[in-house]
């Protein structure tokens, strides 16, 4: 495939525009919804329509990348180092597809959960701005725009926080951590520009291979620290409405991890080897600590957020492996975990709503009360734990195989332990909320008096989208062949020197 990839800007322009469509649609939707923010009755329909259009655009993008390779568009025909290039390779397209599907599921759910006042203040426009930022990060070909879209995403997320109200002392404090993070990211970008003379990903990858290793490690440290500080912003996500937590798991977390993978992929092979041990340690800590901490939580959502941390650790571990299988497994793991945990958090929000409490010790008896929610919980728990028919299993299989081939047993062991712990945590949630009759303690055999049933309208708006999302996840899992070929392409493209980077570089052919 790499031989048949000449300089891609010369390709038909229609192809190139595909990389911009999802971003443009999201921005358009945000603008339109802002204009119509008083007409709350129109919001949901308009938002669903735009969301469906973005999902379709991303789906077409994935199919296109699968068939023809990365899609590149240089605006105005200006090429790097001066022009700014949009491009989508398999990694970006897959994560974009998953993120937009997650948003599509959150949109109707939010309708039943977010106060009408917040809706009038612009809840939906901000969700679309968030998605636009995510799409921008996923489709950018240079570091400057990556930074800009990352900031757009973060500012939109903070805007959502503002619109929802109920801000405590921690709100500004954690936002300050985000500001510090963006200053560090900016410094890292400036330093890489000073080292290589360009901001385009292609030129950077080339420049880094000639730069002093110490300087590159310093820049990588700045990027890592900056991104880590930015993630701090979202620690309180699980105390917010479930729709926001689902947005965190479905959009913000995957896109942040994607940015880390993308930056890591810029490094030449020898410097990846230098940085891999650090990344491995980070990944191992996340993989083990996340599920272990989740095990002792009494709050479902907090447990799920910690499981996302563990799954993110597995993705970073695959990236640290650096082989085609490791990288490819990491990419499909990242794409599926966004969708799965978004759906899980939405269902967790439903369980909390039906029980009228957030304390898992007070829950129980869901199996008798609502069979549909119960079955959905079971299916999603299997998907979250990565049991065989679901895409998480195939991703873990690739990751484990990649690790064993590289003989990185120190990475494979915590990965498998993490998967097992995740299964235990999720099974525990199932047992406590669905399987047992009543609350913890002496009355656990008696029916749970707190349970309320969902109204018909609520069921349609909440369970419907989760059902569709779960169906898509299951469908992907039942036909793993395209998934494997997508993983192969993504992993191949992220190897040093990356194919996508060759495409964007004017000098190489």
């Amino acid at each position, binding site marked *: 495939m790499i031989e048949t990839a000449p300089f891609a800007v010369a390709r038909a322009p229609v192809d190139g525009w595909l990389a911009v469509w999802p971003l443009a649609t999201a921005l358009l939707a945000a603008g339109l919804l802002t204009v119509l923010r008083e007409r709350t009755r129109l919001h949901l329909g308009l938002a669903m329509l735009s969301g469906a259009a973005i999902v379709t655009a991303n789906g077409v993008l994935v199919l296109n990348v699968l068939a023809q390779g990365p899609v590149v568009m240089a605006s105005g025909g200006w090429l790097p180092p001066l022009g700014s290039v949009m491009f989508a390779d398999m990694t970006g397209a897959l994560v974009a597809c998953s993120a937009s599907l997650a948003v599509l599921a959150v949109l109707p759910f939010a309708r039943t959960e977010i106060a009408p006042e917040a809706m009038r203040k612009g809840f939906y426009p901000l969700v679309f701005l968030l998605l636009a930022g995510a799409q921008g990060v996923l489709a950018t070909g240079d570091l*400057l725009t990556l930074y800009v879209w990352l*900031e757009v995403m973060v500012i939109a997320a*903070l805007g959502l926080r*503002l619109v929802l109200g109920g*801000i405590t002392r921690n709100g500004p404090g954690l936002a300050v951590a985000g500001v510090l993070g963006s*200053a560090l990211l900016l410094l890292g970008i400036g330093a890489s520009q000073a080292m290589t003379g360009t*901001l385009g990903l292609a030129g950077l990858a080339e420049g880094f291979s000639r730069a002093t290793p110490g300087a590159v490690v310093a820049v990588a440290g700045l990027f890592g620290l900056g991104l880590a500080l930015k993630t701090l912003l979202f620690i309180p996500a699980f105390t917010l409405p479930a729709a926001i937590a689902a947005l965190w798991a479905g959009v913000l977390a995957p896109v942040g991890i994607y940015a880390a993978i993308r930056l890591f992929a810029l490094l030449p092979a020898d410097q990846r080897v230098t940085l891999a041990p650090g990344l491995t340690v980070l990944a191992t800590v996340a993989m083990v600590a996340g599920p272990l901490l989740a095990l002792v939580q009494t709050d479902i959502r907090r447990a799920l957020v910690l499981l996302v941390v563990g799954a993110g650790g597995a993705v970073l571990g695959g990236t640290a492996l650096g082989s085609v299988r490791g990288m490819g497994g990491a990419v499909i793991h990242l794409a599926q975990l966004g969708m799965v945990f978004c759906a899980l958090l939405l269902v967790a929000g439903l369980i909390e709503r039906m029980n009228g409490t957030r304390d898992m010790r007070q829950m129980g008896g869901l199996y008798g009360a609502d069979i549909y929610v119960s079955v959905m919980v079971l299916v999603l728990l299997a998907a979250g734990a990565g049991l065989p028919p679901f895409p998480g299993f195939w991703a873990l299989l690739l990751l484990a195989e990649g690790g064993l081939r590289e003989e990185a047993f120190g990475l494979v062991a915590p990965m498998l332990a993490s998967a097992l712990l995740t299964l235990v945590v999720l099974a525990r949630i199932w047992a406590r909320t669905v399987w047992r009759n009543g609350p913890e303690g002496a009355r656990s055999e008696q029916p749970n008096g707190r349970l309320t049933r969902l109204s018909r309208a609520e069921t349609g708006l909440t369970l419907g989208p989760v059902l569709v999302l779960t169906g898509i996840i299951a469908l992907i899992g039942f036909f793993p062949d395209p998934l494997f070929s997508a993983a192969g392409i993504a992993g191949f493209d992220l190897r040093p020197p990356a194919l996508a980077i060759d495409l964007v570089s004017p000098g190489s052919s």
Partner: protein
Amino acid sequence: MDSMLAVAAGVSFAVAVYLLLSPSLTRVLCGAACLGNAAGLALFALARPVPPGDGARLADPLAVTLIFVAIPLAIAMLGVLAALARRAQEAGEDGCDDDGGQARQRSGAGTTGQRHRGTGRAGTP
């Protein structure tokens, strides 16, 4: 000139971090504003002059672009931060009023300072 820029950036960073660590939200906001400027100065100091070695030194256009893009983003972030801080103060959970004196001296910030002081005093006697 380069060393001057580097020193200015360093001083701004120091001031910014000092202000960011303050418990008062108003000072934290000033620190965030300062941090954006410090990052811009540092970027300018980092940039290589083009053409390199020439007598007439021009600023690197890419670096300047980077700074110009960073400035509006920093302002946007500052706006959101200010809104968050305001909400936090309105919620009465701020609990610190050690900036009251400075805020009142400026005429523009007078009303906010008064308001802040009012809620703050209630929390911390």
